[in-house]
């Protein structure tokens, strides 16, 4: 087993373990903090895939903004988040069964696919992924339209969120 495989296994174990903690912890602030741990593990996975820019943006956007938003929301609605009430549905086992079935279905579908266990080619040494991503995002014959639509969506979400959370006097 090579070093890279060992690092991948440690990262994957850490990510999945903290992901399980997110959905099973009783204390919601702890669940949000475990989410931060999971997202950090995902960022390490991106770094293992040589996507440096995506890894750093993952930390900036998810840990810097989304995780903190979650912690804020949990604290602002704290009154009925006490740990003594059940945090799960009565028929939680149906959910567990569905999740396991989903995973089994994915595994079944994927292992029948021909490209399932292909290995990656080396990245050409002079290839500048960050520059290429930047050009792809704003070039008219690449992805400028999805990018603009996404920014409009973000603006609409911003306005909507402010309107919803605004405390009308």
């Amino acid at each position, binding site marked *: 087993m090579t070093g890279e495989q060992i690092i991948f296994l440690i990262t994957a174990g850490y990510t999945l373990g903290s992901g399980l903690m997110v959905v099973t912890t009783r204390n919601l602030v702890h669940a949000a903090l475990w989410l931060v741990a999971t997202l950090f593990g995902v960022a390490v996975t991106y770094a293992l895939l040589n996507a*440096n820019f995506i890894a750093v943006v993952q930390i900036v956007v998810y*840990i810097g903004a989304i995780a903190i938003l979650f912690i804020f929301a949990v*604290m602002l609605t704290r009154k009925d988040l006490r740990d003594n009430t059940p945090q799960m549905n009565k028929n939680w086992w149906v959910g567990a069964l569905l999740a396991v079935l989903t995973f089994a279905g994915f595994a079944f579908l994927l292992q029948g696919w021909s490209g399932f266990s292909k290995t990656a080619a080396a990245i050409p040494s002079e290839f500048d992924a960050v520059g290429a991503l930047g050009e792809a995002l704003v070039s008219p014959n690449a992805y400028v339209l999805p990018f603009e639509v996404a920014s409009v969506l973000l603006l609409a979400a911003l306005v909507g969120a402010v309107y919803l959370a605004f405390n009308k006097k």
Partner: protein
Amino acid sequence: MNFWNDPLKVAADWLEGIFAGWGMDAVLAHVLVAFLGVFLLIIILMVLDIFLVWVERKVVARFQDRLGPNRVGPFGLIQPFADIIKLMIKEDTTPGGADKVVYNLAPILSMASVLILWAVVPLAPVMLGVDLNVGVLFLIAAGAIGTLSIIMAGWSSNNKFATIGGFRQVAVMVSFEIPMLAMLMIPVIFSGSMNMNTIIESQNVWYFLISPLGALIFLIAAIAELGRAPFDLAEGESELVAGFNIEYSGMKFGMFFAGELLHAFTFGGFWAILFFGGYRFFGLEQVSPFLAVLILVIKAMVGYWVIMWVRYTVMRIRIDQMLAFNWKFLTPLAFVLVLVTALADALLASAPTWLYVSGMFLANVLTGWAALEIARSATHKEREQLEGAKQPAEVSH
């Protein structure tokens, strides 16, 4: 290649040779040497941190017309060690009802978020931790972890002052991240790269001269990110007692404190790297990496001194004033400045250096002047409205 020209490479090769001589696997030896390098850097930074306590106390004393520590050792140099011994032997308290794991994790994360920044600092052309192609964004990513440590400290302390302090600090850090991110784009526009080393190499003219306004906005955002006066409302002694670190004692408090000092010094260093040419100083950095490190440390010290200078001469402002300042003035100005810089850069692309520099400088000054004029008229109107509402009441007296 000798020790004088590339000390890290020579030392690493020597160590790997020794480990290989012991019959160690080559990959393992490489990992071990890298680990030792990180360990050494952290030790140097911690020793520097102790020295920074002394610098901070001496400088604040001079600003306030005092002498500062001068009893323990020559010029009071041993004073920080006395402070550390005091912190070590203090009782290590944990408040009742605190969330123990989160409470103990917060100071470690706070310190780690500062130390991790030094992974991308190019100390010299050949001395840097990782040559990351997104080094500039790494700065913001580490800041996100610092924010997280503060909210963890504030929430887990089970103390209302700590929670309010944590909330305030997070609101400030999240909102001032935006002008800071926009200002990080300015060196990126000029150098065409997010790599710290490339940014320094392409600074034949200091970016401070090309974009003085950008450097200023970056400094303001950095001070807010640090949570130092005038933006230290997370600690606000007179209102919140000590803010998010109120319940911490002993060395845990010491870690927050040391982290803050090192953070200030680090941001002084980043200011120097992004806008003042980093380790470059009239070709002196070519002589030896040791000289380059010295130049960078001196420049970082100057940046740190400016941050201290602001801290001890400007008073604290209110949280609403601070957020209004950010959202209504600093963020729009930062975005406009990025637009102006990109436009001027495209217009002056083929101009000779002197024209390019003076044109960029002029564009910056004009943008800043226009922003100040707009802000002045807006505040004037606001004040008139307020006073106009008050006047009838005064007449009835």
